[in-house]
């Protein structure tokens, strides 16, 4: 194999491992990757979509939370597809949430990803998971009032 082919292969590998510098590809196993990366720490993981009107409300809340609790990781996973990345980035920037970790569904079967995340989640959005430090998780469908999120944070953020 020629040397250039090695470089090409490496390039392809890098392209595949990240859909975009700011938005990672969420595939089977990505949730485990997120859990491992945030081992022993509380965090908020929220699934959203471009087509979801209530997700915008939720993002406004998250932007407020991020200002008040800058050390609490907020992870956003879009259930759209990689081709929507420019629009996703635009919306997240408009909401002032650019410091969040971002992912986008990147599997032809959305059902498969959703089922692996939570078989009791039927696709309603936003869908948010509050992870305590021991990764005990609370699942909530729908935009969450900021008071409720703050009550959880005060209980779980060290």
């Amino acid at each position, binding site marked *: 194999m020629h040397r250039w082919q090695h470089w090409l292969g490496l390039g392809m590998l890098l392209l595949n491992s990240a859909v975009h510098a700011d938005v990672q590809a969420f595939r089977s196993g990505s949730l485990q990757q997120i859990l491992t990366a945030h081992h022993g720490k509380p965090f908020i993981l929220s699934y959203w979509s471009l*087509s979801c*009107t209530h997700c915008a409300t939720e993002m406004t809340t998250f932007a407020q939370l991020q200002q008040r609790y800058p050390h609490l990781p907020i992870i956003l996973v879009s259930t759209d597809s990689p081709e929507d990345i420019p629009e996703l980035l635009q919306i997240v920037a408009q909401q002032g949430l650019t410091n969040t970790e971002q992912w986008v569904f990147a599997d*032809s079967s959305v059902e498969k990803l*959703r*089922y692996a995340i939570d078989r009791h989640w039927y696709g*309603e959005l936003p869908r948010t998971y509050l992870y305590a430090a021991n990764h005990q998780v609370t699942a909530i469908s729908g*935009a969450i009032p900021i008071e409720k999120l703050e009550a959880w944070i005060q209980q779980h953020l060290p």
Partner: protein
Amino acid sequence: MRRYRCRELLVSCRGVCAVWLFMAIAMPVFAAHDHAMQHSDAQKNAAALAISASFDAHGRVWLARVIDQHVVVSHSDDLGKTFSMPVQVNAVPEKINLGGEYRPKLVAAGGRIYVSWNQGLPQRYSGNIRFAVSTNQGKSFTTPLTVNADSDPDSYSHRFDALSADENGNVAIAWIDKRAAVAAQRAGEKYHGAAIYIAESHDGGISFGSNRKLADHSCECCRLAIARDPDGTPVVMWRQLFESNIRDFALARVGEPLQRVATDGWAIDACPHHGGAMAIDKNGQRHLIWFTGVASAPGLFYRRMNAGKLTSPYAVGDPQRQAGHPAVLAEGQRVFVAWKEFDGNTTTIRVMLSSDHGANWNKPATLASTRDAADYPLLIAGRGHAWLVWHTTEHGLQFIDLGSL
């Protein structure tokens, strides 16, 4: 290669037939695989799988799908084995909202081919309801017209079109419309959700009457269902907002107030992206099926409405397997219900049948499955039979015979 796949499907069909005892007929399954379908076969995601199919009176099946910003229509005289070359409906490309609760709609009736779709606009959550008709057997279509007619240019959100057409050139299109929400916002008032609008044509889709509001405060992102009472009057079913955030189903006959048809009490500030289905039989009995995510009893439910009276909700499918996205077909005494289930690896289409107007139901059977992306199931009638139509990445377009009507 393609022939092999077709044979493989026929083999798997025999197994299905064994399960599907009550029909006692051969159930050929065909994979569409001519040039016209190659594009959609190659698609990777569920959005590109979103299609509509309808039989005309001569047993020809008509298919609408979207390719590169064009709605295209083709037809098949051999139950989907081969299709004609697709004809573009909109000559000028436009962004078309697709996938999930969106799909292009097609109805073949009275010698005409009616098509509607949702044009995406630059603003978020926005769209126009678009429509075109062919009066020359699908050779060409009229210039698309925008059915939503707003005097206010800022009320740009019209989405989730539902299309109905009969043999006599009566066409009805219902949709979710945010003009009232925009007006309220401008006046500094609160307005929950969106509204349901309808426009009707009585000249075969050449012209439409004014936009009429059927109801205020609908949920915003769930597909609508439309059917006609025996007198031809359209009836629309949708997810409605009761109080501020209870997302249960309602229906309305044009000219009459809405009637609540589900009292699940699913209170949630979220977008379920999960509409229901409705069929109306010749006796005027309405067959309704819908999804609720209410924590106490999530899942699919079926009930009938006869002369304003509702039967008790009947749980359908396995909520542990994500039972959802239903279709219903009522022809004569028979009622068919199809829905999707998923076990973590395989998506299956489950079908159940009633032979007594929906009073009693047989045990549901699995009629198709895939391990890859799949559209919702569709149920259509034609050639004296009922058909399950399902489009998947793995198998292409399948027509599964559900038996004679």
